[in-house]
């Protein structure tokens, strides 16, 4: 993601690459951040935050809290797209969000965020005589399931119904499962090939069914969205924001 983000920033009018960091000891330290940018990748986060107007971090969960702290200290907005952040770290990030603008997107694609909003709307409008099922399709190398997007879609549906997803979710079905409990939100995952990422939310009623599908065929949709979030965050008052805030979908 990092490399793609650098390329996205470099080709976006009005934006310039201000620097890039890598893991200490990594092979890319010292190499060019971007072709012709005239700057080298360092392991110095402090310098990065000092030199830039906004920072985008889609690296790893273990450094997320540290990024947030650096952003707060330097008063620089941060777009933090890392997943799998633990509760304690999340509390630290929230605290940092009281001193600078932090956008924490679950997913930066415009299309997927529109689908989140539509799913919530549909779930709110349709009663539980419409069963909600989510099918996520991912490439063979992805090592976890359900995907973050599948879970986010499920949460959007639960939010629309004003229920807690944990109470109603059904993951995996095998054997004598019995009839489906009313109000359940089911999730299933297909894994194979280098499938472009496809997510479908089914609202299955009696006599009809609605399906909302998002297909991502290029990772550019995520990098574009990340840069949109970064530009939005600039000049924003301190706070913890979502992609829905960025896109005006809240």
């Amino acid at each position, binding site marked *: 993601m990092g490399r793609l983000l650098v390329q996205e920033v470099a080709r976006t009018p009005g934006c310039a690459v201000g620097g890039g960091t890598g893991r200490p000891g990594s092979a890319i330290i010292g190499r060019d951040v971007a072709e012709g940018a005239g700057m080298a990748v360092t392991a110095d986060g402090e310098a990065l935050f000092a030199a830039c107007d906004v920072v985008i971090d889609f690296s790893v969960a273990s450094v997320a809290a540290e990024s947030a702290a650096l952003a707060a200290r330097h008063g620089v907005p941060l777009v933090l797209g890392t997943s799998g952040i633990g509760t304690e770290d999340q509390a630290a990030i929230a605290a940092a969000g009281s001193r600078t603008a932090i956008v924490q997107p679950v997913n930066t694609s415009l299309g997927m965020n529109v689908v989140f909003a539509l799913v919530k709307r549909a779930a709110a409008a349709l009663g539980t005589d419409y069963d909600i099922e989510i099918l996520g399709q991912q490439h063979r190398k992805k090592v976890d399931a359900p995907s973050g997007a599948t879970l986010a879609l499920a949460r959007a549906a639960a939010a629309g119904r004003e229920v807690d997803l944990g109470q109603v979710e059904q993951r995996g079905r095998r054997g004598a499962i019995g009839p489906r409990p009313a109000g359940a939100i089911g999730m299933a995952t297909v894994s194979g*090939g280098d499938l472009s990422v496809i997510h479908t939310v089914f609202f299955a009623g009696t006599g009809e069914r609605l399906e909302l599908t998002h297909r991502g065929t290029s990772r550019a949709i995520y990098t574009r969205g990340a840069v949109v979030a970064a530009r939005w965050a600039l000049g924003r008052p301190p706070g913890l924001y979502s992609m829905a805030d960025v896109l005006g979908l809240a």
Partner: protein
Amino acid sequence: MKIGIVGCGGTMGRLLVQEVVAAEDCALSGGTGRPGSPLIGRDVTEQAGLKPSDLIVADDAEALFQASDAVIDLSVASAAPRHAELAAIHGVALVHGTSGLDAAQQGAVEAAAGRTAVVQSSSMSIGVNLMLELTEQVAGVLDDDYDIEIVELFHRNKADAPSGTSLALGRAAAAGRGGDLDALAIYERDGEIGPRPDGAIGFAVLRGGDSPGEHTVIFAGAGERIEIAHKASSRAIYTLGAVAAARWAVGKPAGLYSMRDVLGLA
């Protein structure tokens, strides 16, 4: 052609009665019900929602087999041996679609096939059987670079997972590659699943609404995917297949046949 329906009062039985009555080249020879059932003595077609026919629901199948060229049995496993024997004695073609037969019941059906034509299949739908055939073929042609996934969507009351059809599709895919489904199947994915094992056949099960059953087999490769999908919108597809099997079986030599024989896919 005279076709009889055993278990004519059940969900499938009634649809079969309607199907045979509607078919131009068939005539309904009669119907039976479970001994003690309130349907015994009632008009066969009237209890199926049609105009009366003067055929009465009987509780013993002997007279039915005597009066028929073919009998369709989508009733219960426990009745299978009796029906198979009657078919054999009277030289009547038998279409048998009940699932869940134990070894003894299956043995009885196979024994009858030594004396009359028996078509046996767990899914009588023409579309599903074609899909099984295609799945096996495609799986044989595309190697492990193509990952096989089976997705199904069924109505909210279906109590078991995956469906019989999904499992049949999985077996067909495994057979196409000379493998064994039990060794390759992945039925659930939750949490850290690790990278996908080569050759695995994955199942994804969706439940909701009122769909009578939709199945998609995905062959996912690098840069492309092939999907074969079957969507049932009505249970009538099973009865159409059963009547087609009955038509085909009349006059065939004794033997145990499948829907693939009926459809010319074997």
